[in-house]
């Protein structure tokens, strides 16, 4: 992890090497027992990794809101669901004869991302009228409304409780079927890298600096003569579009989507991921998503194991609930590890200098902006 404090060039080289490794992973035969369900070239492992990467992309888009702009949104799942359901519905209904099949597919994805952007702009324009805790509750209410709409199955489009299955007639053959999991893995990786680059670009842009400044001290930003509302709305909409992109890829990967992704609980999961990884750090969000997804998967496998079944009730019941363990872990991280997993590595590098907590928090925010 020492690369993260190093000179920019080394940083870029290290990132490129990491991406290259991820690109080559489906061609390699690496087995890590206890972490992956099988060797890295098997569809099961690739599916899990692709899933983790899409969650990482989603967590990155949430990082824009929470980490960069300091907006505690409880409705981010809405845009992910809009992406997943949106692509499903667009693919089923959008088939202009003048477009070749491949172009229809690409156009559908672009339309979906646009839907995410517009929806986020609409929701944001109302909910950004309030800030702080009220904002959190209002976004939660919108997400709940979205969840209700999806379950109600308007016009037979969302499939209600059963969810929506991907209509593959306009999807390129290379992205359909278990044998092509490898391609879906690469697609997910491409989505993650794209989202990462967009997030990086937004963070370094003027808008990014303005929202980061607003997060620290809104009054000062107003005094300078900038109205934070529109910049916040822009960031909110971009985050919505990125979430929709991740959602669209999610639909392709899972070849379907269930109403679970529209529930407010799913947003809470995202919040857990971002905090677990380390608030305010891009790779913290990615790390959190990978750790959370793998832990969730392994804990679910553990819950069904004979070892757990043989334990007395008082141990068996908590241990057989992955979410209980993850929730408890999350509480412990919030209480004892304010910087998340990313903060852990930073602390280990300089263990010889004990500092007051307040100062440490100040430094944290300096490093992340």
């Amino acid at each position: 992890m020492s690369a993260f404090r190093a000179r920019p060039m080394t940083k870029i080289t290290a990132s490129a090497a990491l991406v290259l490794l991820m690109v080559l992973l489906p061609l390699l035969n690496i087995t890590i027992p206890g972490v992956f369900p099988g060797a890295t070239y098997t569809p099961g492992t690739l599916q899990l990794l692709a899933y983790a990467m899409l969650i990482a992309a989603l967590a990155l888009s949430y990082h824009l809101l929470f980490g960069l702009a300091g907006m505690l949104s409880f409705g981010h799942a809405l845009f992910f669901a809009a992406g997943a359901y949106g692509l499903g519905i667009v693919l089923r209904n959008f088939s202009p004869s003048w477009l070749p099949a491949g172009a229809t597919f690409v156009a559908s994805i672009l339309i979906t991302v646009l839907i995410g952007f517009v929806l986020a702009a609409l929701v944001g324009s109302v909910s950004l009228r309030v800030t702080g805790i009220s904002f959190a509750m209002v976004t939660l209410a919108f997400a709940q409304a979205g969840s209700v709409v999806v379950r109600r199955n308007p016009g037979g489009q969302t499939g209600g409780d059963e969810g929506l299955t991907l209509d593959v007639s306009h999807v390129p053959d290379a992205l359909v079927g278990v044998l092509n999991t490898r391609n879906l893995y690469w697609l997910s990786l491409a989505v993650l890298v794209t989202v990462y680059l967009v997030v990086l670009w937004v963070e370094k842009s003027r808008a990014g600096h303005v929202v980061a400044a607003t997060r620290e001290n809104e009054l000062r930003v107003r005094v300078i003569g900038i109205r934070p509302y529109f910049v916040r709305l822009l960031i909110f909409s971009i985050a919505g579009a990125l979430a929709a992109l991740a959602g669209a890829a999610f639909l392709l990967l899972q070849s379907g989507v269930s109403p679970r992704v529209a529930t407010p609980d799913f947003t809470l999961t995202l919040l857990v991921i971002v905090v677990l990884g380390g608030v305010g750090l891009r790779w913290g969000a990615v790390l959190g998503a990978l750790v959370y997804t793998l832990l969730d998967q392994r804990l679910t496998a553990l819950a069904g194991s004979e070892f757990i079944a043989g334990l007395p009730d008082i141990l068996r019941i908590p241990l057989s609930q992955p979410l209980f363990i993850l929730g408890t872990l999350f509480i412990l991280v919030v209480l004892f590890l304010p910087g998340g997993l990313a903060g852990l590595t930073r602390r280990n590098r300089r263990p010889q200098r004990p500092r007051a907590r307040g100062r440490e928090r100040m430094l944290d925010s300096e490093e992340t902006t």
Partner: protein
Amino acid sequence: MSTIVLLLITGLGLGALYFLVASGLSLIYGLMGVLNFAHGSFLTIGAFIGWEVARRLSDGSWWALVAAMLTGAVVGALVAAATEFFLIRRLYNRHIEQVLVTVGLALASVALFEGIWGTDPTYVTSPSWLGQTTEILGARIPNNRFMLILVAVLVLVAIVLFLKFTRYGLIVRAGVENRLMVTALGIDVRRAFTLVFAIGGAAAGLGGVLASIYYGYVSAHIGGSLLIFAFIVTVIGGLGSLAGAAIASVLVAVLQQFANFYLGGTGDLAVVLALAAVLLLRPRGLMGAKA
């Protein structure tokens, strides 16, 4: 006419449930600035343990019901006070972290409830009178609605009396107004924090037992689904305002019932639209102190 009466009284009954959850949320937020996501879990644990007690006493008698309600309230209060003491207090004045801790607690506790009581709803047996109906102006109203309204009114009166006529009530009211000043006057506000959490937890636990009468069952998710509407109610009513919470719970629940009946089951959407409208016209809520 009879339909309108039925919808109105059912709405009031549902509003009573919302109020039992929202009153605690609003008080806690008003005094401490904490958005308590674990409030739904206080409700659920109150309901589960209340009914466990009722089942052991006897099925379907009034005494068992009263015992369940008291147990629910006590359990809710204890769990809430423990939450404040062990988790929230450690993060004093760090509001985002406090929200995060309650989120973690909500996730973990719902999973634990599912582990203990299973994912299927547990059906409850209440006194048979509650399952019958009474005719008012031609409308056949389920009797349990009257009990919900009665209990909620009693809770409202009790909280108002506590706030107006006790020393701790005075401290809580002053703390909502200006916490810094109360501390500067040498009063330990933290004890009031625990107290407010306990009161909110008691109302939620009681609400849990009543909610399971209303729905006819207890499940691990009963608190979470009510919590979202309670959040909406607190925002519409104005954060930190008890009267606002009371008025808004009735408005929201009645609106929900009417929209469900006349607009083809769109009650949940109507509530969210109402929330958006309130935010556009009056961002601080109906009775909120400041934006």
